[in-house]
């Protein structure tokens, strides 16, 4: 299973991941850092969105693991 991993320490709260997939990502109210809501993409579309999120995350805080 592919899983989305977020390194909250790196995250700068730009919210690009939330824009990409609001079902999979949210941001903490406190410091804006990422909260992964769904860590395993449910289908191919969700996987594609996760790949986009990984690519555009400006702080390289997101990754996909097998």
């Amino acid at each position: 299973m592919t899983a989305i991993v977020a390194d909250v320490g790196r995250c700068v709260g730009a919210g690009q991941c939330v824009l990409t997939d609001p079902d999979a990502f949210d941001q903490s109210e406190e410091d804006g850092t990422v909260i992964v809501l769904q860590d395993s993409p449910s289908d191919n579309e969700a996987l594609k969105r996760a790949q986009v999120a990984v690519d555009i995350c400006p702080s390289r805080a997101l990754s996909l693991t097998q």
Partner: protein
Amino acid sequence: MTAPALQTTRQCPYAPPEEHTRIRDTDSGISQVTLPSGQIAWALSRLEHIRAMLTDPRFSSDRRDPNFPRFTREQPSFDIMRRSIIQMDPPEHGPARKAVVGEFTVRRMAGLRPRIQEIVDEHIDAMLAGPRPADLVQALSLPVPSLVICEQLGVPYHDHDFFQVRSSALLSRATTAEGRRQSVTELRDYLKDLIAKKAAEPTDDLLGRQLAQGNDPEDVLSLAFLLLIAGHETTANMISLGVVTLLERPEELAALREDPARTLPAIEELLRVYTIAEFANSRVAVEDVEIGGVTIRAGDPVLAMSNAANHDPLAFDDADEIKLDRGARNHVAFGFGIHQCLGQNLARMELQIVFDTLFRRIPSLRLATPADKLAYKDDVLIYGIHEVPVTWDDPA
């Protein structure tokens, strides 16, 4: 060693200067240019290289470093305040950004929507009640972002003219060193007073909350200054450029009106093709770094030609074409790396509300001066248009 002088005049409003695309399309994509300051800088022009630089801690954002790329002969004038986040490097930057980024999350921005809608509607009402043609820049582009950020910070709106005059002076390449220093000092003194008042009598607004969190008033001052300057002219120029572009493409505008879901991807494409803050991603190397086969030495200024990068054929298909449904967010119009624009989701929402509301409320809106006769801002650091005369039909 000599290097050609940096060119800044665009081939057309959304095409980078020829020099930038020429450098981009050489084998290495990297060259050296002489900046107006006399500094010789490495020029990066490919998306991949700029992204690499912006995620590499061996490049610094310290705009007080004498080797940081400059567009004027004199040293920057912000040093009368502490460094703000845009000038900080790790490890200082992270905690400082996290202290404020919670105010700008996607969800927080959605909460501001009703008030921004109100502000936009009021300004459109006022424009419709006034003479034709109207200047969109004064009627809508400048006041909307200014009012939004003033309210968010807790700056009284009656002081907004004061801000507008001084922030434009700061951004203009034509302003003298003296004039720039004076604008910075006046803004600083005003904000200092305001923050002292808020420290004495707590208010529930961004600045009030920063103080309540226990942040040092001197740091809150630098942040306030940055937020007022960073989001004002930038958003204003994107409003003006976006309206002109959409009016010039009536079929696509009609499609947008039919389906508001098209607006956000269109905004992303407008951000990409115009890249108004084209040099904002520049840095100075603090260690030797190899990028694209070129060795950049510690202390070398590095200029990011972000507009060329956002038109990089290696990164975007038909990169020079405006495709409003492209929806690509891998551009660097808001930067990349840890400094990526803090206000990007506010900017996106302001643009979305302005475009949707303006074209819905005034279907007959049109330019009163042809697009190619408009005065584009080739002489300032943030690209835009000075004046956009628009007109419309009598209400039926």
